[in-house]
């Protein structure tokens, strides 16, 4: 039998190369990378102890220089680049250290939400009798606005990093579940999955081999958006004074502290605000770029 099918077929450009061609991915990646470095190297970026209170230098403007006794009793000049807050803490140091909390919250929340959401989503997509119950429960969770659910949850636990992470994870999980479930439901209709069924591939292997790989790209994209949302919600909770305890330097806490005097010292809100906005922007741009390349059909939901 002759092979007459010689239609030329173009190979797909590699995903990595496409990613490196995307401006969003590059700019977003650079911003996120810079924030990670700032957070990781915080102690070596000419910072002071961010919790150190010094009543003699309260409410100073950016660039104020004071002479301070160090641990050995020597007098050294100290420049407060971003000024000080009403307790005399160094805003610059607090902002730099604040990157740590934001990134840790963003990363842990997105990882935990995705793992839990993936599991529940797979169960809902494959165990038909559980689907109804699970999805009604998820609908209920989704009906409570995310920030209110988080506020409600932090009011129940003692304030702290753990409580904040849990409080942000709970509202995000149903969204991941919905995403995974919808992917599962559409992929199981694909002829290649049905072919795998007819060649006798057992269900667990079927999910692992044919269904799971289809969830990776959307989940990476969703993960970055969750990360951005988590950083924002953590900042909001801290800003409202119900998140992470005020002595820990987070961008939200610095801004909360700066609220009372912000007409005189707007920089106490401005500096952490810029860091926060730029970080979230970076993560969002990364997510946008990843979506355009990996998962063009998806759109961000509200």
């Amino acid at each position, binding site marked *: *039998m002759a092979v007459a*099918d010689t*239609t030329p*077929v173009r*190979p*797909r450009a590699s995903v990595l190369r496409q990613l490196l061609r995307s401006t969003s991915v590059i700019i977003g990646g650079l911003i996120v990378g810079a924030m990670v470095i700032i957070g990781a190297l915080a102690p070596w970026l000419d910072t002071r102890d961010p919790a150190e209170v010094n009543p003699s230098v309260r409410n100073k403007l950016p660039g104020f220089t004071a002479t301070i006794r160090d641990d050995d009793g020597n007098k050294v000049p100290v420049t407060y680049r971003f000024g000080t807050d009403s307790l005399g803490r160094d805003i610059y140091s607090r902002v730099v250290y604040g990157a740590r909390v934001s990134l840790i919250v963003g990363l842990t929340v997105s990882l935990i939400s995705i793992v839990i959401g993936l599991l529940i989503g797979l169960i809902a997509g494959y165990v038909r009798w559980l689907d109804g119950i699970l999805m009604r429960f998820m609908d209920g969770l989704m009906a409570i606005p995310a920030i209110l659910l988080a506020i409600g949850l932090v009011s129940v636990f003692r304030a702290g990093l753990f409580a904040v992470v849990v409080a942000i994870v709970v509202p995000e999980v149903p969204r991941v579940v919905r995403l995974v479930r919808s992917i599962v439901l559409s992929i199981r209709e694909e002829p*290649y999955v049905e*072919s795998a069924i007819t060649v*006798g591939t057992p269900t667990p292997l079927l999910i692992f081999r044919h269904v799971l790989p289809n969830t990776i790209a959307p989940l990476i994209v969703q993960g970055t958006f969750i990360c951005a949302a988590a950083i924002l919600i953590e900042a909001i909770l801290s800003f409202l004074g119900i998140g992470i305890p005020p002595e820990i330097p987070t961008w939200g806490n610095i801004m909360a502290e700066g609220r009372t005097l912000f007409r005189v010292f707007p920089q106490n809100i401005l500096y952490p605000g810029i860091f926060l906005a730029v970080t979230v922007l970076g993560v969002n741009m990364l997510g946008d770029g990843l979506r355009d390349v990996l998962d063009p059909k998806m759109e961000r939901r509200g």
Partner: protein
Amino acid sequence: MDGAPGPSGTPVLELDGLSVALPKTGDRTHAIDGVSFSVGRGEIVCVVGESGSGKSVTAQAVMGLLPKGQLTLSGGSIRLEGKEVTTCTPAELRALRGARMSMIFQEPMTALNPVERVGAQIGEVLEIHTSLSAEERRNKVLDVMASVHLPDVASMIDAFPHQLSGGQRQRVMIAAALVLDPVLLIADEPTTALDVTTQAQILKLIAEMQARRGTGVLFITHDFGVVAEIAQRVVVMQHGKVVEIGTRDEIISRPKAAYTQMLIKSVPSLEPPSRTPKTSAVALAIEGLSKTYVSGGFLAGKKRVVKAAQNVSIEVRRGETVGIVGESGSGKTTVARCVARLIDPTDGEIKIGGVDVARLRESALRPHRKHVQIVFQDPYRSLNPRRTVGASIIEGPVNFGESTADATRRARDLMTLVGLQPDALERFPHQFSGGQRQRIAIARALAMEPRLLIADEAVSALDVSVQAQVLALLDDVRERFDLAVLFITHDLRVAAQICDRIAVMQNGVVVEHGPTAELFSNAQHAYTHALFAAAPGRGVKFGAGIEATT
């Protein structure tokens, strides 16, 4: 080139050296290249070609509807009633569209705005091009709707598109296209998405309108049956170029170009060859199979019961091909999916090698799964894009305990058998064409050494030349492995050529069932009659007189 004017005077449409450029990234520089032909007043010209031939691009270029930024007119001229169209301003072009030339499309389901009443959509043309009052518009819309034989126009004028059948929607499209009596109607595969009986009605309507109004028709199609049915002259296109132009009889009976000869030869004849009845062992026995869907209920709206298949009984013997033929919604695919146990039948028996698998649980079913394999319609979705072709083929045998090495060795042999290179196993599906993928899907099915192969519209998405090859391959493997084949199709030509016996389904019920030749020559049931009568080009014999050249 044949640029002769049509039957009466100046041609309505003249294309002269028309070229459309593709974006630079592609492997071709032009979607169409130097296309010249004409359409006379009151003449039906069919442009026929396989996918990628540029036939639809030609139509879009004439209408000035080339997708912005992707395709650009790069040369040649288009003259409508002698007037150059390529140099028109957008406003001048808009004034021509809908009034002097109009167009109908392939998908009547999506070509109408779903949120606007059909009367308003026909009237839109009048709103744009005339200054008639609302009252006058409505009357004119009613007239044109009646003239395309839409029923009960007084109430249908206020219906929404989703309340109409596919055929009715295409009639609405035709009404909107013809309401201002244009000199040129471009029909881009207008019946491809329709069932065969509806297709026959729409073809009849287009011919009637053309005869009555003297409209020139440029009819784009891939289907030689349709060409034989409707064309006066035919333009054959391949890879963006015109291959041959001639009258219908010239092209179908005495094609000159080798490509046209190959195409015509690939068209399956409606006359079934004589076949000896098979008396081998029964591989598949379907008895009283029913599948009922119940949707809706208390919270989800009105309860609906759909009887997708009712009391279906079909036998397939080893080495035999049994076709299930029917229009959309007839239940033919439901039967196939029940047999493959992709869905659970509501009632009845499915005996495979004597064992009833209709009600087996998944774990008990698994050993039986290898006996039944299926090839799907869409070659682009039937292979996992992330896995190599080899991994897809050996998946089944490995599930049943064969070692990867053994399975791969067999897979190499199977690739040769289906006409592909064995080293293709390491490649990914996107590196293959549609026809090649269908070959791979067949190899995957054969790797399981099944008793029954289900082909669910397996050649319907393929171009006619590729279709002929895949059909030959299917017939070849049936014979070689003594396979029972259950062949699901809507295409009577294909069914006539490949099936030993045929079951005709309508609305979930098998209305008639018998040996292919008998059914074609002496159908008993009224629906079978109607179905066969509707097959386009049934009066024309394909491939006559070209046997010698191949």
